[in-house]
């Protein structure tokens, strides 16, 4: 058996490794998706005061600390049985929309976009943001940097610190915003909308009008007919910050909608012998292995998934794009809504549509006169035994679940982070891409390998915070089994 290793996966958080095992004929026998072994975060938190969590959990990872901060603060609201005043809820969401814009923009231009803008066959040294600038002009680079600076400025202004906000408290926010700050946020939102529209036009020109890319996007290689997860409001519109979690089936029909606190009734976690990663799946469908279809409980929680579970988007320009998106992929209607788009490469487009939605919603929030109310905190009076908070992180539905004693000391902590939801789907995409792209030993051309990485990268996986879930300090041991389940090989992974 011949082994091909792609290590490291370029441009991903943390460290991943894709292993592909070929059979005697040089065809793919198995693929494995591996990540580094950062574990024990929940145990690290147990015994601490619950109110420390918003500033500790946002250290899980340097990429989406804002998402952890918000899920944590929302969990604390429940744990301390206190509702934030309206202005505090809006400030939180305003910050969160600024974060979404900058995170999605960074992914598109620095991580996912180079595959399309520079091209999947370009040398790896050119498939980065510099390659993007060379292809589409220096002004784009300036706009990306300005977008980041503008939104980090908003995050610092509202959250007290850039990147790692500290202002979230159970029952509200630590400081109100002034009229001048509101105006700054409104102007930033206006420019974010312009940049999102510019990015969608760029995507249109470079990807949608390129027959080769569209053929790749529509090909069966990057297509899985799974269930989808995402958060929606009371009218089943996309909501990145708050709402009920909705599941739709591969045919587009609603499968379930539930309060985030009830997640354990809907999601179970599968453990595989070859990795410390857990593979969440839908409990009521069941685990049938790494396969798609209505009988497999594998689901996906990504920008594409969120568009697939939403009846519509709540802002006008994003709604236009939402309709255009579904029409481009030939979606029909079921129960009055679009049928899902299963082509995973569409995730990149969905990400840009979400960026536009976040920018438009940011402007709505900043224009709301109530947001400058000085009343931003309700003081907790009691401790409930449990609090669950969730948001849509850029990489998927994020859940923080805390149990505490009567003094607010944490007794149990469970986190399901965005990337974790997608572990099974990521493994499937890698497998399928490998099967389609490697035949009879014909392998290892850079463009070919990059296409495998593209299958991975479209999920924008954040490995460093997705690998916290098991206790222990053993290095990762990978075991390989044949189709009968017999162990045929194992090796240890260095730290």
């Amino acid at each position, binding site marked *: 058996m011949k082994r091909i290793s792609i290590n490291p996966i370029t*441009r*991903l*958080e*943390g*460290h991943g490794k894709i292993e592909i095992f070929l059979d005697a004929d040089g065809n793919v026998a198995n693929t494995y998706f591996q990540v*580094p*072994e*950062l574990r*024990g*975060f929940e*145990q*690290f938190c147990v015994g601490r005061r619950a109110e420390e969590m918003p500033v*500790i959990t946002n*250290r899980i*990872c*340097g*990429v989406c*600390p804002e998402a952890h901060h918000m899920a944590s603060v929302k969990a604390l609201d429940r744990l301390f049985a206190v509702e934030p005043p309206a202005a505090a809820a809006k400030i939180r969401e305003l910050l969160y929309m600024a974060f979404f814009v900058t995170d999605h923009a*960074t*992914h598109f231009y*620095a*991580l996912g976009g180079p595959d399309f803008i520079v091209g999947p066959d370009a040398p790896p040294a050119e498939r*980065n*943001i*510099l390659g993007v*600038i060379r292809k589409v002009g*220096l002004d784009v*680079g*300036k706009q990306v*940097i300005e977008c*980041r*600076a503008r939104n*980090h400025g908003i995050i610092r202004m509202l959250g007290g610190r850039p*990147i*790692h906000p500290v202002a979230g408290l159970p029952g509200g926010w630590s400081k109100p915003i002034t009229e001048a700050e509101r105006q700054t946020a409104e102007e930033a939102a206006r420019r974010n909308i312009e940049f999102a529209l510019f990015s969608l036009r760029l995507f249109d020109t470079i990807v949608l009008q390129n027959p080769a890319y569209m053929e790749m996007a529509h090909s069966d290689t990057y297509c899985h007919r799974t269930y989808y997860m995402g958060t929606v409001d009371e009218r089943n519109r996309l909501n990145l910050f708050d709402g009920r979690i909705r599941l739709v089936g591969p045919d587009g029909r609603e499968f379930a909608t539930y309060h985030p606190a009830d997640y354990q009734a809907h999601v179970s976690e599968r453990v595989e012998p070859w990795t410390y990663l857990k593979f969440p799946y839908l409990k009521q469908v069941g685990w049938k292995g790494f396969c798609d279809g209505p009988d497999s409980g594998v689901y996906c929680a990504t920008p594409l998934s969120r568009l697939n579970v939403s009846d519509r988007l709540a802002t006008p320009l994003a709604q236009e794009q939402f309709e255009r998106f579904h029409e481009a992929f030939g979606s029909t209607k079921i129960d009055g809504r679009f049928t899902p788009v299963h082509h995973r490469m569409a995730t990149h487009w969905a990400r840009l549509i979400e960026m536009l939605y976040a920018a438009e919603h940011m402007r709505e929030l900043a224009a709301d006169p109530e947001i400058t109310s000085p009343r931003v905190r309700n003081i907790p009076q009691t401790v409930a035994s449990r609090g669950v908070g969730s948001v849509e992180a850029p990489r998927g539905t994020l859940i923080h679940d805390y149990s505490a004693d009567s003094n607010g000391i944490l007794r149990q902590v469970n986190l399901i982070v965005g990337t974790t939801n997608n572990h099974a789907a990521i493994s499937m995409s890698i497998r399928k891409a490998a099967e389609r792209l490697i035949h009879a030993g014909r392998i290892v051309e850079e463009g070919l390998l990059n296409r495998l990485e593209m299958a991975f990268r479209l999920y924008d996986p*954040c490995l*460093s915070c997705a690998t*916290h879930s098991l206790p222990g*300090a053993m290095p990762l041991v990978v075991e390989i089994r044949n189709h009968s389940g017999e162990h045929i090989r194992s090796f240890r992974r260095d*730290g």
Partner: protein
Amino acid sequence: MGTIIIGIGNPVLADDSVGLKVVDRIEDRLQGRSGVALTRLCCGGIHLMEAMAGHERAIIIDAITGGGGAPGTVYTLGPDGFSQTRNVCSSHDASLSVALELGDAVGLPLPRDVRIWAVETEDVSTYSEVLTPEVERAVPVVVEHVVRDLDAASGVSPGGH
């Protein structure tokens, strides 16, 4: 302008936090110095480039693995020495060298003088707020190096204050 001192790391990931702990100590030594700013980052790449922009000099302190020395070994590197990173926090966007080239291309005022102090780690995969003993012992060593860098930049001779 002036000098920016940047500590990089995850404060709850054992030795990965060494850069942050060095910066905490340096902060106490900066009383009365002008033209020196200090910041803490959790990731490299574009974030790091953005933090350096607008300063004449940058001194970066970070954890390193695979540098070849025993845990606690202190290295000094130029920006090219950081082309491959194993920072578990993030390589979300770009390597530092790509990020610096990007900053240059879009006209950000980047420091002409970048020095990196790195400490070889023992453990960067356990959630902990304390350093391993060898790495802990390296903290004052790096602090002295950085203070000497600052003295040299401001024309103060060693032991001159």
